[in-house]
């Protein structure tokens, strides 16, 4: 098998874990090679050349070589200095990482995924206010990139454009259908989310700026992602505390 050599590739660390004695096993999201697994030899030694570099959310330029199986990390350097994710934004970042680790397969290059990851991190860096919207758009774009894009701009039964003032039943396996007896809630059932046309429009156009649209978009992406995630829940959901007793500033927790 031929050795693949990649030089100075834009990348992020999605996950790292100890490997052998003093190395790290890294799962990287790279621009041109998708998700790749590489070993950073000696990275856990105090005087390692990688010290402090191979951390999640840090934009990197990495070189590696690979002869089938695990790659071996060569040079790594900071690509640019991003603002550090803190507090709730950090938890959101870990949620996105878990989502990517669960849904993106190794060695299946996809530029769109690298781009959506870069842009969700940029939004999370801005801090709390925007986190929820950032996550929903990231989920929308991830589903799209994985080939499970959601129908958001037309009624899948009559083909008409979504009307903001109407209520729709969104069927997991086809898309939005105008609810019968508009405004009247049918009995909730599995595989269907009921939401307003205005929320569908907001998600489609990427301007989720009111509470209701955020809440409805969350129910929709959650149902759609659920199909791909199966019954194994995302662990990072546990990072978002339900604030019992405390005054809730939000209608819902920001996370998944």
């Amino acid at each position, binding site marked *: 098998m031929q050795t693949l050599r990649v030089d100075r590739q834009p990348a992020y660390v*999605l*996950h790292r*874990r100890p490997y052998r*004695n*003093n190395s790290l096993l890294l799962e990287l999201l790279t621009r041109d090679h998708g998700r790749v697994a590489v070993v950073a030899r000696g990275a856990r030694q105090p005087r390692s050349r*990688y*010290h*402090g*570099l191979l*951390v*999640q*959310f*840090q934009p990197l330029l990495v070189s590696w070589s690979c002869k089938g199986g695990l790659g071996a990390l060569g040079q790594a*350097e*900071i690509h640019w*200095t991003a*603002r*550090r994710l*803190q*507090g*709730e934004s*950090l*938890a959101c*970042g*870990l*949620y996105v*990482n*878990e989502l990517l*680790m669960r849904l993106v397969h190794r060695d299946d290059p996809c530029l769109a995924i690298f781009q959506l990851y870069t842009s969700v991190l940029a939004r999370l860096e801005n801090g709390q206010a925007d986190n929820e919207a950032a996550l929903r758009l990231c989920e929308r774009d991830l589903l799209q990139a994985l080939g499970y894009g959601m129908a958001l701009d037309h009624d899948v039964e009559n083909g008409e454009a979504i009307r903001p003032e109407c209520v729709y039943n969104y069927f997991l396996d086809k898309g939005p259908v105008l609810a019968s007896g508009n405004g009247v809630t049918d009995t909730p059932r599995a595989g269907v989310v009921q939401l307003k046309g205005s929320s569908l429009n907001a998600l489609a156009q990427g301007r989720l700026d009111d509470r209701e649209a955020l809440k409805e978009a969350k129910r929709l992406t959650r149902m759609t992602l659920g199909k791909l995630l199966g019954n194994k829940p*995302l*662990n*990072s959901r*546990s*990072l978002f*505390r339900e*604030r*019992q*007793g*405390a005054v809730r500033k939000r209608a819902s927790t920001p996370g998944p």
Partner: protein
Amino acid sequence: MKVNESPLIRQLVEAFQCLPGVGPKSAQRMSYHLLERDREGGRRIVEALAEAIEKVGRCGRCRTLSEAEVCAICSDPGRDPAQLCILETPADVLAVEQTTSYKGLYFVLMGHLSPLDGITPEDIGLDLLARRFAAGGVREVIIATNPTVEGEATAHYIAEMAREHAIKPSRIAFGVPFGGELEYLDSGTLSHAILGRREL
């Protein structure tokens, strides 16, 4: 491994490799040393290890390693129960004890939150910590988890818990070592120090 090596020696060499920093070479050296020159020392290791594994458990208050139900620090009346320092490992407790004049109590997580590794709040004893907060008596938590992404996420989670109970959370400072010179820092540490700067 040599062809003529006995299965028992091979088993011993493999067993030593569970120790951190011990690879095949040093495991082999240790095994041969004990068998050739220090069987008595080997017996002492066996006994001490068996006894420690049998008797050392966790402190019921702070979760650190302890052979008593409540460890020596937690049961020391001279310590200030209003201050609680949160650490990732028992080794961190030793480090703080040996190098600072901290006189409060500890809580040891035995790890950090790491969703991708399946480590959730209960796995690091945060349910126990929440009960401790709720019981009252703690006024300040000093969160001293590691300056890693997971350590920071853990710190944030605990800080939120503390605020819910009107306890003041603080985070220890990281970055440029005192007495160090910027020129000799690696780029990662320096960049973190600049990003994590605090107001003066």
